[in-house]
Structure formats: C-alpha cells, structure tokens
C-alpha cells in the first residue's frame, strides 16, 4: 500500500516537473520573429514617428535652437515656469551636463539613428533604404550640430558593444557620401516623405555649415563648398515645384495641401496621429485665450523690432479658421488680446490681457502673467483634438533661397544675394533692401525663419552666438557645443566630454 502511494506520488511529481524556462513573448516580437514577420514599412513608419521628437516643446528644436538664441525666452513667471531653472539655463547659456531636456534630445534623436540603421538589416526595398538613410543622416547632422560628435553603429553591430564616435568632420563626410549615394533612389515627393529635394536641402546645410562645424569659434567658408550650396539650391529653386506663397499657409493645419514652399516636413495626421506640434501654440498662449495655453514662452522685443517694416506679413495678422474661431492672430501677439467676438480678454487677476513688449528672464512684477510677445507660427488646429493636423516643417523654399544668397555673399557676390533677399521680402510685403551684408542677412534669416529651429545654427555660423543679447550676458566658447549628457557619457567610454564641461 505504502509503495503504491509513493509510486503514485512520484508520477505526480514528474508530471509537473522541469520547465525549460524559455520566456515566451506575447505583446512583443523576438528578433527572429521580427525578422520573419515585420514588414519593413512598419519599421520605417516607426522611424518617421521618431522624427516627431523635433516637434516636442522640451526637445531639440525648441530647446537647443530656439531657447538658446535671441528669438525666444522661457521666462520664470513668479509661481509659474521655474521648473528648477531648466528653461533659464538655456537662454542664459548656463546649462550643464545633467540638463534633462538636452539629454533627452540627444537620446531621442539617436534613437532615430538606431531605428533607421536597424531597418537596413530587414531587407528593405531600395527606396525604403534610401528613405531610412536620409532620416539617419538628418539626425546625424542634428547631433553633430549640437554636440560636435556623433555616436554611431554600423548596421548589424551588437548594441552591447560601445558605439564608435564620429567626429564632426567624419559626420559631415558621412552625410555627403550618404546623400550622394541614395539621391537617385529617393522619391520626388511628397514633402512628408524623405525625397530628393530634402536630400539636397541636407547637403546644402552640410556644405554651408561645414566651416562652422569644423571651427566653431572662427568659421571659415570654402569657396567650393559655397558653390556646392549655390548649385544644389538652384536645382531646387529651378525645379518649378516650389514658389513663395502665403506665409502662414506653410504652417496651417492643411499645410500639406496649401503650402507651396515646404520641401521636407514631418507628417501629422489630424485627429489620429501627431507629434506635439500643438505645444507650439500652447507654450505661449495665455490661460484665458482660446485655446487655453500654458502662458510660457515669448520672443524678445529686440528680435521683434528687427522687422522694422510694419507691413511685413511675417509679423502676422488675421488668419481664417483661427482668428474667426478663437480670436487669435498669427505671428507676434502683442498688446490687448481679443476673443473671437472682438471682446477684450482679461488675465487671471482680472487685468487686461495685453501682452507687453518687454519681458525678463525672471518676472517678478504684478503683471508677470502678461509680459512678453507671444508667437503663433503654426496656426491653431481647432478640429484635430489631441492630434493636430499641421505638418511639421523641416525645410522650405525660403530657407534654401536664403542659404543660396548667403553662399553668394560669402563668395563675394552681394548683388545676386540681395536680389534673392528682396525677392523674398517683396513676397512678404516688406520693403526691399538697398544693400546686404552678413548682419543684415542674419537678421533676414531671423525674420523669415523665426521659431522654425534654425536660429542657433545660424548664430554660430555668423559668429554671434556668444554675444550678449536681451536677458543674456556674453558667454564662453564652451557654449558653442552642448555637453555630452552625463548618463550617455557614463554609458560609452568612446565619448569624450566637450571642453569646458
């Protein structure tokens, strides 16, 4: 009897014994499954989605290109927007290696570099590979611009190996080689897909900024590089695909349909899937405006005053679908704000909601809610819910034209350059200029391309980035690069901290 029971028990024990402990994934795929099942188009879609990091209010474009420059200020408004000084440190050029938004920008852009590299292991079509390689090069440019060195792994390299690091020179060579290699494989459009003109745009930026990337303190500009800029720009300008149009149409919810200038954009699908382009209007709008905003960022009066001509359409005005719905104008919001019926709005304390020209890095007065000129570059999408429809603009025609003009100017041809600048100014209903020098050209780039994510790069290339300006003292040469984020530095011994940090 005993033995039988014992035997029965042994059987029971054995029936539940010995799992091999292989972990079965459910919601996710293993590498093998992914290789077998995943369509490359899904990986490519995720790569494009990754590019939405540029739209985020606390990421690369806004943080590195705008806050650090003379076109944007993130003031601390008494009880609001202190945020541990994370915004102030950008405008006052006092950021450190633990700056959370700089670190996240670095990481998220390099995620796109990873995703686009990884995709190449999945047998993409020629065009898919070309698109991915364009996105990768675009991101390599952004990292080289911000940090001067680019961690990089070739396709198929183990992630557990420390990434190699491309110097600025190597990064630029890489971009030029890649673009020349894939140019023929890219489609002609539309703007929200990596296309031939986008690749040319990236090449133009690469040649134009090469001298600054390689010597940030005193950039020099090689004549051959400038000729490359001119020739590539001409290919775009003369293609007949683009023309200067209604300025704010480029940033409207339906800009994919009505813009005549956009060359490369990030697609946002209204009502279904978008990046954080909405933050571009939320960040400045007051709580009591429609839509209710975050009452944060402003531009500076010196920058605003650089326009001069009050008829310049880039200063903004009424915009159908926005002003009639929420009372908001486009461009620069200064003075009394109205609702859609024309009634004057009040701030939270019951005072007139009239944005002042002046604003300080630390606002301490009684009017701290209303200081500073707000900016509406992307017109408000009232229909998209959480997902605004406005495609995010990376490259557009006027930028290419101004880069061509700059190359001509740097190559000693100011009259050709002036003609281009005036062509743009006339299209924007601004008085034509009589003459052109580098300072004027930089100012024109500011007027045309404000709050589009180009300003820091421009200021460095024109040698002005370390200057004092409103709410900022002159800064040291280390500020020409951002520090390698502390966590990233600790994770990859091949990275060397930039000087001065």
């Amino acid at each position, binding site marked *: 009897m*005993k033995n039988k029971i*014992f035997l029965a*028990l042994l059987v*029971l*024990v054995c029936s*539940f014994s*010995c*799992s091999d*402990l*292989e*972990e*079965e*994934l*459910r*919601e*996710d*795929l*293993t*590498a093998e*499954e*992914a290789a077998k099942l995943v369509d490359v188009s*899904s*990986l490519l*879609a*995720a*790569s*494009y*989605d990754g590019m939405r990091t540029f739209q985020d209010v606390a990421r690369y474009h806004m943080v590195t290109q705008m806050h650090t420059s003379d076109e944007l200020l993130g003031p601390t408004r*008494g009880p*609001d927007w*202190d*945020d*541990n000084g994370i915004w102030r440190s950008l405008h006052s050029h*006092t950021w450190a290696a633990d700056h*959370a938004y700089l670190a996240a920008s670095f990481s998220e852009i*390099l*995620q796109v570099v*990873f*995703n686009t*590299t*990884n995709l190449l292991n999945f047998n993409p079509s020629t065009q898919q590979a070309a698109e991915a390689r364009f996105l990768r090069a675009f991101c390599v440019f952004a990292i080289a611009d911000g940090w001067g060195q680019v*961690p990089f792994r070739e396709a198929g390299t183990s*992630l*557990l190996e*420390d*990434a190699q690091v491309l110097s600025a020179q190597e990064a630029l060579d890489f971009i030029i080689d890649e673009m020349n290699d894939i140019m023929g494989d890219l489609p002609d459009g539309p703007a929200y897909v990596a296309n031939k003109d986008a690749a040319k745009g990236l090449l133009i930026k690469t040649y134009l900024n090469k001298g600054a990337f390689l010597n940030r303190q005193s950039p020099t500009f090689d004549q051959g590089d400038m000729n490359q800029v001119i020739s590539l720009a001409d290919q775009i300008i003369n293609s007949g695909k683009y023309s200067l149009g209604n300025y704010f149409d480029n940033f409207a919810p339906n800009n994919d349909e009505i813009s005549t200038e956009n060359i490369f954009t990030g697609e946002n699908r209204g*009502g279904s899937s978008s990046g954080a382009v909405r933050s571009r209007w939320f960040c400045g709008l007051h*709580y*009591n405006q429609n839509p*209710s905003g975050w009452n944060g960022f402003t531009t500076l009066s010196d920058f605003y005053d650089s326009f001069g001509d009050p008829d310049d359409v880039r200063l903004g005005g009424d915009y159908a679908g926005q002003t009639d719905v929420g009372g908001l104008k486009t461009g620069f919001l200064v003075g009394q704000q109205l609702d859609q019926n024309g009634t004057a709005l009040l701030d*939270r*304390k*019951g005072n007139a909601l009239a944005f002042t020209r002046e604003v300080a890095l630390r606002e301490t007065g*009684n009017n*701290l809610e209303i200081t500073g000129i707000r900016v509406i570059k992307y017109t408000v999408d009232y229909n998209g*819910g*959480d997902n605004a429809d406005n495609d995010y603009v990376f490259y557009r025609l006027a930028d290419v034209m101004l880069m061509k003009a700059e190359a001509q100017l740097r190559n000693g041809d100011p009259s050709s350059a002036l003609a281009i600048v005036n062509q743009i100014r006339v299209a924007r209903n601004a008085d034509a200029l009589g003459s052109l020098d580098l300072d004027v050209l930089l100012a024109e780039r500011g007027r045309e391309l404000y709050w589009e994510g180009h300003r820091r790069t421009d200021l460095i290339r024109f040698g002005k980035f370390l200057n004092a300006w409103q709410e900022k003292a002159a800064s040291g040469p280390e500020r020409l690069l951002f520090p390698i984020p502390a966590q*990233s*530095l600790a*994770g990859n011994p091949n990275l060397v901290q930039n000087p001065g940090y």
Partner: protein
Amino acid sequence: MKGNLYSSLRRISLLGICILFGAAMTFAQRTISGTVVDNTGEPLIGANILIKGTSSGTITDIDGNYTIRANDGDVLVFSYTGYQGQEITVSGQSTVNVTLVQGQLLDEIVVVGYGTVLKRDVTGSVASLKAENFNKGIFTSPDQLLQGRLAGVNVINNSGQPGGEATVKIRGNNSIRAGANPLYVVDGIPLDGRSARAGLISTDIGDIPNSNPLNFLNPSDIASIEVLKDASSAAIFGSRGANGVILVTTKKSLSDQPTIDFSVSAGVSSILKKYEVLNGDEYRSALQDYGNTGGNGGDNVDAFDEILRTGVTQNYNFSIGGGGDNNRYRLSFGYADIEGIVRESGIKKYNAALNSTFDFLDDRAGVDVFIVANHATEDIAPVSTNAGFTGNLVAQALQWNPTVPLYTNNGDFTSGMNNPLVGATTINPVALLAAHDERANTTTLLAGISPFVNITDKLQYRYRFGVNYGQGTTRGNIRGWINVQGIENRGFAAISHTDLVSQLHAHTLNFNTDLTSNLSFSALVGFEYQKFDFRGEAFAGRGFDVLDRDNTVNLQNGAPSDYLSFSFADPISELQSYFGRVNFNLKDKYLLTASIRADGSSKFGENNRYGYFPSFAVAWKLSNEDFISGGVFDDLKLRLGWGQTGNQEFPAGAAQERYQFTSGGVQQENVANPDLKWESSSTLNVGLDFALFDYALSGTIEYFSRNTDDLLLDPFVSEPGPAVRAWRNITGEVVNSGLEIALSAFLIEKSNVSLQLGANASFLNNEFSNFDGATIQVGELFGQGISDATVQVMTNGQPLNTFFTREFMGLDDAGNSIYRDNGDVFYVLGDPNADLILGATANLTVDKLSVGLNFNGAFGHQLYNNTANSVLPIGNLGTRNIDANLIGGEIRESTANAIAPSSRYIEDGDFIKLANATVSYEIGKVGSFNNINVSLTGQNLFVITDYTGFDPEVNTVNLANGIPSSGIEYVPYPSARSFLLSVAFSF
C-alpha cells in the same frame, strides 16, 4: 522584537500544528478526551495537543475540550502560547485533564517558510503577530495590521483612500527601483504582488494611486502574520526573498463542535489633520495687506470641507467552523462597506473563505483545501499623484479662493464662465466631483489544495497546488462640461480590464527523527513551479454628442479621431525551484539550520538562468547551559545567521531583445542581456532572545547588516540605441544595517488584573555605495511651475532618495527667495529614510474590561512638502488660496516669488501617533450566545509632529524612470481618524 507575542493570555491561539502537518499516523488507537484550563480554571481555547515525535495532534475548542486518538505509551504534549507546556504519557486513560501554568512563552508555534517551528527553536529573525495583537480599526488589507507592531517592519500608506496601497519596507530600502515590497505568502502560496485593479488610459487628471494587492484578504480571516526579516529565514524563498517575506496564515476551525462566530462593527471616519489655508476673512485681510484690490468674492467658503464628509463604515463577519474525526472546516463570509472621507469615494468588499482539512486511510493521508473569494468595488476620487498645474481634487479644494462661493445663485457650479474672480483654468472641486466617476471592480480568487501522505511516521510528502486569479474592470467617465483641459466640451469615457493569474505547484518531503537521544534532525526537500500571467486591455473615447451623461455605455458615440484602444500581455514568467533545509538540535542547546534554494526564472538571462541562495544559522540556548540555568534568565538564546536572497521584481522580457508594436509601426524596445539576473542580498544577523523574572520581562535584541548588489537598473543604452533603456545589473550596492530592540513586560499579572507594556525600536542606516555611474535624478515633482523638476538623487555615498536641491536662505527685502550660490548649485539637504522607527503598546485588563493602546512613530528623516511648494504658493494670492504659514512672517513674501523647489519645503518628518486605542468588555455568556465581546476602537486618534503637511505617514509615490520617489507629499488623499464600535459573539 515580538513584544506582543507573549500577551496572548486570554484569547484564542488559532494555529494548530495538526492542521499544518496533517493527521495522526498511529495504529490501534483509541480516543482520549479532556479539558485544558489555566491556573484560574478558565478554559484555554486553541491549546495545542501533540503526540510527541509525530506531527499529529489537535487543539482545544472554545470550552477547552479536546479529543485525540493515541496509543498507550504515546506522550501527549500540551502547549499554549504564554503558558508552560506539559507532557503526559498515555497509559490506559480515556480522560486527560490538564492545567497549564503561565510562563513558558517560547512554546509558541511560528510559521516559517514551508513549515513551522517552535518559537524557542527559531534560529533566524522571524517576527510574529497573532490576530489578537493586530492593529484594531478600519482596514482593508493585512499589511495595515502590522504597522508599528514589529521591529524592522515599516508600513506607510501611499494614499488615504480606503483600499489604497502601502509601501512596506522590511529593514529599510533594498532596491533603487520599484519592486522593493516584500514577498507575501498566503497559506503556502506565494502571491504575484501586483493588483489586478485596472487603471484607465490617460484621463487628463493624472494617475490614481495603486490599489492594495492584498485587499482580497479579509483581515478577520487571518490568524497570524509572520515576517521573515533576515536572509537565514528568507533564503528558502530564494530570488523573491530579498525584501523580506510576509507569511499570512488564515484561520482554521478550532473545534469539532459546530461553532458560529459573528461580529458586526460600525464606525465613522473624518479627517485626521487638515492642511492650514486661509479662511475668507484671513484671505481678505491678506489681500488688503498686499494692497490687492481684486480677488475678494465677499463670502466665507471652506472648499476643502465641501469635498469631505464623515465616512460611515459597516463591517459584518460571519464564520462557521466544526468538523468530525476526519475533517475540519471553517467557512466565513465578510462584508465591508467603507466610505472614504472624500465624497464619492470608498470601497465595498464581499468576501468568502473556506478552509478545511480531511483525513483518510486511518489518518495516513489527507488533504487541506482553502479558497478565498473576494469582490471589491472601489469608488475612486480624482486624487491623482502627478497632477499638473490645474491640480487634483485635493489641490483644487485647497486652492479655492475662500471668498468665492462654490455655487452661483442659480445653484450652478461657480467657474470662470460665470464669475470673473475664477480663472479659466481654475477647476471648481465640487464640480469635478460631480463630473468625475470612476469605479473599479476587482474580483480575486485564491485557492489551494494540498494533499499529503505520511509515508512513515517520520516522513511526510505534501503536494500543494495553488491558483491566484484576479480580474479587474474599471470604468471612468468625466463629463465634458468640466473645464479640464482635454475634456472640456468633449467628455471622456474609458473602460479598462486586466487579468492577473498565477499558479503554483509545489512538492515537499519532510523528514523528522531523533538520530540519538541527544541529537534530533529534520529535513525538508522540495520542488516548486510557479507561473505568472498578466494581461489587459483598455478603451477610451472623447467627443461625445451628449456631455452630461455616463458615456462608458456608448463609447461608439465618441469622435472617431479620439478613440483610443490599447492592449498588453506581459511575457508569461515562470519560476522553477529546488530547495532544501536541514535542522539539527543537539542536547536542546545547540541548533543549526542550513538551507539552499535554486531558482530558475524565465526572466533571467540565458547565461544566468539559475540562482543559488544558501543560508546558515546557529543558535545557542544559553539558558539550557548549567552555568545559566536556574539563574535570573528563564530563557536566553543567542542566534547567528547568514544567508543570500534575491530580488527578481523586474519586468518579464527584460533580458530579451524585443520589438514593440507602437501606434504606428514596430520598433525595437529592449536590448538583449543574456547575463541579466536578480539583485542579490547578503545578510548577517545576530540576535539575542531573553526572558527574565519568570517571563515578566522578555525581548529580543538584533543587529543586522545587509548588502545588496547586482542592482538592477534600466539605464539608457549606449546611444544610438533602440529602446530608451536596457536592463543591466550595475556596479554599486545598497547597504542597510541596523539594530532592533523589542521588549515586553508584564508589570502586573494577577488573576483579574494584568498590565503589559511592549515596545520596539529599529535604528536603521541606509547607504548607496561603490556606485560609479552618473547620479540618478529621482523624486520628480508635479504641479504648477515645477514641470520635470526633481528633488532627489541616487548618488554614491548617500542614502537612497537623498534630497538634492537648492538651499533656501530666507527672503530678501523685496520678499523674494534667496538661495545659497544664487540657486545655481544644488546640495544634499536631507534624507527621507527614517533613522529610528518606534512602536509601543500598552494593554491593561481589569476583570472583564481591557484597554489597549498602540503608538507608532518615526524619527530622523525629512519630508518634502510639495503641497506647500506648488499648490499653495504666495503667487496664488488674488486668484486662489495660499498656505496659512505664508502670512504674518517678518518679511512679506513677494507674490511674484518663483515657485522653486528648494530646502524651504524640506521639513522634519518626526512624528508619534496614537495609531489605535481599544476599550473592550467581555460580557461572556448570555443565553445561547457565548463570548460576547463589545469594543470601541479609536484609530489614528492623534499625531504629534511639526510637519506642516497632511500626515507625515503618507507617501505620495511617483515613479521616475521606474524609480519610486520617497517622502514627498503632494496633495494626497488625506488620512482619516476613525471610531469603530464592534460586537462579537459566538454560538
């Protein structure tokens, strides 16, 4: 340490060794019966009767009667908690009546991993609390029964919402990441540790604190809770033992006689401690003082009162127990309806439990069965942990301008639309209460069946199958007329559902023998397999045609562009274990325990599939040595233990390369790490147990030191990387060390009067060391003006969660904050880990009346009052309310002073609390009702603290990168003070 263990003088001891070890294993037996009484003649209920050298026995019923089958020559061992044991040899009697004398404290039976031991034979650090010593009051889960009662065990509520989760730390914090809660084992079944309560997809009002995963247990079904504190006791739980183990043992039937127990209690709860803000008149005077001509609505309103209420609690518990020669059963039903002190919140629990045992084959085999079934319905208040600048319900109520009525003359909710004094983004708290509905239904089943066979009288085989099934459905609806950004004019409705299933198969062999007359030996070997499965789905919509209704019933009406759906299924994780333990007892003086467990987990990387967790412990019963025996010491035992334990509470799938489906594509989200393994803790424990003066004074002193390394972190993969993160075992260790003292003293011990005092103290030290990585920023703050700001760090050489922020130096003449180094440099400015945790009890019994008091406190730590920092700053003046402390200072603070995180809001967290006080009266027998007991309990009666926030014992937990904050208060659901009247009787 176990100050309370020895106070069980009159109440029932619920744990019978017979039930744990099964049935008698004897032949040609006959029945012996009798009564066990104490020296005053009172029957002892639940006294143990064990046949010596076997695992068979029984316990006495409520009249002290017992029946047992034994052979002539068998020795019956009678024991009872707090009483001296007796041994009587069977030689023909059919009746054996026994009188036990108080004193032999260490005969208590203590549950340990996979078995039980006599208290006097314990070699590790095991703290035990019996039902009669549990905290009294309104509780939904068993962890709250322990708060303050045991040295080294710290329980802090994460929310005051009934049913809210608690942070339980045994001997300090082990882990950088989340997953530092102890392992819970209920009647031998290790739990998953997560709650099946479903959370909603983004509601725009922030995340609601988690529900307590132990809510499914009815506190009144619990007989005892044991806490395995050191590695020598917890190592048998291997890779899940590093945070300590809490063993919950449910009640079994005490008697063969059918016995019905019934208790009913009713209580009221109200807020323990209010946050001091200005009232209407003070606000007007502040406005005047500041020369602010606006902002006065002319009224006197306490918005905070308007969201609160007196919560009413009802609790009914019914159980029936009994049995026959071959079976015992206990069946219980419980119903609890606990209203929260915030309106529209509360929990209803429906509970049923069955616990039974059956014997077969002349008691040579048997089966234990237990089932706990629970359904909980939680009504959840919109008190989120991470609300942005518009705040959560508590913030909105605190901030409400106290001069502005909450309702208009028409009875509408006041808002920016109808009152210019109210800003567009200011949310009327009573309106939010009306607009917001969130109800979570969670159903949990825990069932175990455990057949056993006594193969010989020395060898027992037991199989245990357990299943824990939880499923939760949460429905949330926010009406679109409320001015919450994202919900206004759209509405919001969401439904979420989760399934959480775990399974256990365990096989154990127990062997007991006397090798020689001086040396006894016991051994355990086992195999165990566990499987965990967690999945869920959620749907949400916005943009409904009709805003003022519950749209969870018609999600399809939402705008197609706003429809959200989401589902997940974690990898099924498996844990396969082999374990063994041996105990030697030489001359009842020298004890040795050694154990080992090999844990294989599917979560570990393939190069580290199995972890090995050894332990050794020795104990020396000095009181049995001639040179001590007969002296002042009744008991004296020195214990020394060492062991290794692990922590594998990291997500399944962490070791594998994984590709994730996003809303628009597929991307790699995780990097493979074939070396990924558990966090490993090594603990050294030295303890001294003692009893003096005829057991009038007893206690334990222990020192421990625990090093935890192979810490798990998911830092950024070295860029360019796929996922944001990759799991690694990093360099660095967390060192916890401390000293624990527990004392219990019977100051008066007479037949009708007794006074017992108990105290426990834990001195703890915590440090993060040998860490060479970059400082990890944690402790993210939420609220106006502090987006993405952090105030804590994990950095080498400091305690975990050290406060690291600007140092506040006062206000300048203009009323703006001055910071050391202009605020550009941050400093280490405090530590949220308490240096000293205290508990104290007093129990006085005079005849039939008894009074019990339980105090607890914590000292030497700091808390961050983010309620003051971001919700009630001076800048609110004119639009919203402010902290009352901001008025009347020497320097008038500028209303433009920035809301900057700084040491200004770091406060000492020292407190002492009267956690509960109970007066009870034993009426005894009336008619056919027995044991009638009436008691009145006050819970959270007072708290003494300088802390200016709500409750120094509430911790608002937010995760940053998977790392929890600690000691940060941010407009939590407030704690309640409760009074509870209970009547219990049996028949």
